[in-house]
């Protein structure tokens, strides 16, 4: 079973609540789900959709074909028609003015029944659910069980009204729906999935950061990063996390660095435009060796670009932002589950090496929802890196020259130590200098960190046949689409595998060289126009990819799209 739903309408019409309900029902019933949000930068109106894929196998990407559309506006009835699979159905409220009815169209009294039976137009989501499940022949008993689970916290009455509304539409649809649907789930029992944690990339990052003992966050709202900031704030009272919405991103990162200098684990969240403003403070964090975590949920640029859409085009900008040369770490999680892990690692890496750590997400990662296994936090460790011995030490030097470049940290307020930091070139004691010899030693101190950082970072993962002729090279959130494309093609007997990077800077090159030597052709698959990761790989190894596949329209990559591009290029 592999069904894709598309719920479309205007902003503010409740697309999300219908989507959430549908997802929850299938997760409760034991299925894997993957949801993406496609929306415009506006508060009301327009045309937005949520696309939910439900499968009895784990899924990490959306697909091009849609089996069922739930349309809340005329635009939504029309816009995705060409993506409707054969035997697919478009359900819409019978109040929507649309007359060009085809066999796939099913106008249903969603709002009417919500009001009549549930007493509240907002129960349209239960109504829509009833219609959908009826068309799929999904056993209502399973739906009832799921609805009870979802609404039981709100009391019996709410459970009963929702079940009634859903059941009414379920029965009515049995009578009225005259079309056909290619799925018949009549004999469905429960699915194989035990994964009951529904989570977005941003929420997983927020929880990972809190688990990693985040104590300070300062940000300025910017799509698509904002939900992470909001999540942390919603938990800030419970955990005592200092959080402030600042006047701009310049201030955000400056404050976070100040808080980290004073000993608090700190982060900022932003998108590319906000990161542009943070660049001078990034250089300061590097020069003063203050650990800090920067999250960039990328969106298409330059400038305002497409504010609510996705791209991976800030990689080289972040890798080389700021004047001067210094070590930094960049991590790009592939999905919500890996996001949690990346967040906890980011803080430890930042403090172990006293460098800025940047997490590169994008709108696709930030907003996509999937159900994952329960995350167990008991194994999380907080490694604060080298700290100065407690007690008085008038000789303490914050920037002591030391072989591995990492000098023990102390904090203002520590009795008997003076902690001096500056953005100028400084001596071991932190006071500024223009001495040429000290300048050289300080730069070498920075660079001496890199070998240890590299050894601490994870190598890339090779998926599929190790000896395949063709390799798709990916990084970050495009993993899912490429991974499924490889799976499909390998299933058709094609010799293809995938080399995927989460830890992207500094770049570990052993496996990269190995794969380049074995593979007949390496193809960069990136959500940008210039194949930035491939450029980085060439810069670090001298090895170039044979071909590029690039998507830069701001929309999610799909396995079908990748396969299409490979076909166009005559590769498969």
């Amino acid at each position, binding site marked *: 079973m592999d069904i894709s739903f598309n719920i479309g309408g205007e902003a503010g019409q409740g697309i999300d609540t219908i989507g959430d309900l549908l997802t929850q029902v299938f997760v409760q019933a034991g299925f894997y789900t993957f949801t993406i949000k496609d929306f415009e930068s506006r508060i009301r109106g327009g045309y937005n959709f949520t696309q939910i894929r439900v499968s009895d196998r784990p899924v990490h990407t959306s697909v091009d074909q849609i089996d069922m559309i739930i349309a809340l506006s005329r635009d939504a009835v029309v816009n995705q028609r060409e993506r409707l699979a054969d035997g697919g159905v478009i359900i819409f409220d019978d109040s929507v003015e649309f007359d060009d009815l085809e066999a796939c169209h099913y106008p249903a009294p969603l709002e009417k029944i919500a009001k009549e039976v549930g007493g509240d137009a907002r129960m349209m989501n239960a109504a829509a659910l009833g219609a959908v499940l009826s068309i799929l022949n999904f056993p209502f008993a399973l739906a009832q069980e799921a609805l009870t689970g979802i609404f039981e916290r709100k009391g019996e009455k709410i459970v009963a009204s929702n079940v009634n509304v859903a059941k009414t539409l379920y029965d009515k649809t049995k009578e009225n729906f005259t079309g056909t649907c290619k799925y018949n789930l009549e004999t469905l029992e429960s699915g194989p999935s035990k994964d009951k944690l529904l989570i977005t990339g941003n929420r997983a990052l927020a929880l990972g950061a809190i688990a990693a003992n985040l104590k300070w966050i300062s940000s300025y709202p910017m799509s698509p990063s904002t939900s992470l900031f909001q999540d942390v704030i919603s938990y800030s009272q419970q955990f005592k996390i200092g959080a402030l919405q600042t006047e701009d991103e310049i201030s955000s990162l400056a404050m*976070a660095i100040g808080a980290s200098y004073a000993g608090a684990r700190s982060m900022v969240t932003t998108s590319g435009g906000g990161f542009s403003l943070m660049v001078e*403070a990034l250089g300061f964090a590097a020069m003063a060796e203050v650990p800090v975590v920067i999250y960039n949920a990328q969106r298409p640029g330059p400038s305002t670009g497409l504010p609510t859409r996705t791209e991976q085009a800030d990689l080289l900008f972040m890798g080389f932002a700021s004047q001067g040369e210094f070590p930094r770490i960049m991590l790009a999680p592939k999905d919500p589950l890996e996001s949690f892990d990346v967040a906890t690692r980011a803080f430890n890496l930042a403090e172990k090496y006293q460098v800025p750590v940047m997490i590169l997400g994008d709108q696709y990662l930030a907003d996509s929802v999937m159900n994952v296994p329960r995350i167990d936090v*008991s194994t999380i460790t907080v490694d604060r890196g080298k700290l100065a011995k407690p007690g008085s030490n008038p000789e303490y030097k914050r920037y002591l020259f030391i072989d591995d470049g990492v000098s023990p940290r102390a904090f203002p*307020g520590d009795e008997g130590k003076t902690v001096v930091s500056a953005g100028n070139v400084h001596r071991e004691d932190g006071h500024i200098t223009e001495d040429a010899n000290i300048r050289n030693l300080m730069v070498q101190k920075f660079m001496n960190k890199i070998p240890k950082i590299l050894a601490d970072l994870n190598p890339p993962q090779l998926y599929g046949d190790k000896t395949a002729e063709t390799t798709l090279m990916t990084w970050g959130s495009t993993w899912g689409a490429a991974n499924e494309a490889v799976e499909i093609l390998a299933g058709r007997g094609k010799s293809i595998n995938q080399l995927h990077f989460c830890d992207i800077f500094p770049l570990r090159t052993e496996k990269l060289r190995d794969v380049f030597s074995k593979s007949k052709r390496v193809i960069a698959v990136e959500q940008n126009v210039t194949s930035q990761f491939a450029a980085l790989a060439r810069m670090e190894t001298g090895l170039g990819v044979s071909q590029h596949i690039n998507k830069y329209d701001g929309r999610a990559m799909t396995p079908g799209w990748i396969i299409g591009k490979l076909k166009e290029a005559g590769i498969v």
Partner: protein
Amino acid sequence: MIIPEMLEGPQKVTWCTGCGNFGILAALKKAIIELDEPLHNIVLTSGIGCSSKIPHYVGGINSLHTLHGRPIPFATGVHLANTDLKVIVHTGDGDCLAEGLGHFIHAARRNVNLAVLIHNNGVNGLTKGQYSPSAPRGYISNTSPPPPGAPMDPVNPTALAIIAGATYVARGFSGDQKGLVVLMKEAITHEGFAVVDILQPCVTWNRQLTWKYYNEHTYSLQENGHDVTNRFQAMEKAMENGDRYPVGVFYRSSSPHLAAGLALPEKGNLKNHTNDLKDVQKIIDDLML
């Protein structure tokens, strides 16, 4: 007890002979000695410019010498991460009133508990004499349009601070040591956003705002019966920007400062606080269907 030797500068001062900053440095040391706060609890932050080199001329004190215009946000982070610290910002007019003006206004609005000491000389000294945001209209420098000199009015830091919500606003003069020490001590101990606009001649570049000029054009607010609790009177005095410069406290009030409005630990500071993993696990488990 703090003795002057403890504060002996780690570095040789690079300011010009006769610079107004010397008076500020001397007053700062005196204020620190008289306050007798444990030195490890003091943090000097600064931006960029002659003023902002001051952390390197005071020994035994924590410091964070930051970016041009940005010392206030950095200092805000230091303060909120550890509210036991006394965080002092040294900044210049070029620093605070040009690139940093937005941060200055917002920090005042938040009433964040910092003491901001503006070394104000009307000129960008370290970059060799361009007109600063506090240069008078008509000020001639190597970047002001010739003629008529700076074709705009200066920024008025004290009036802006009062309007924006600062709860302690004063003006000092580098040539009035006694008065300046008192103002610095008050600013450092004040609970809230405290600003001291310190007049300090740049002897190398500024031929207009000189020692002689300030000696002749300053007068004491407190000796002339000013009511520091009256915000409108304070504004009126702060608007006297030109021929005569009032010196002393313009405005003082009390209102909750930023830290009181954030989710900080009731005891201790963020540095030593730990998020309980059991609570994180509970959130995750509650999110599960």
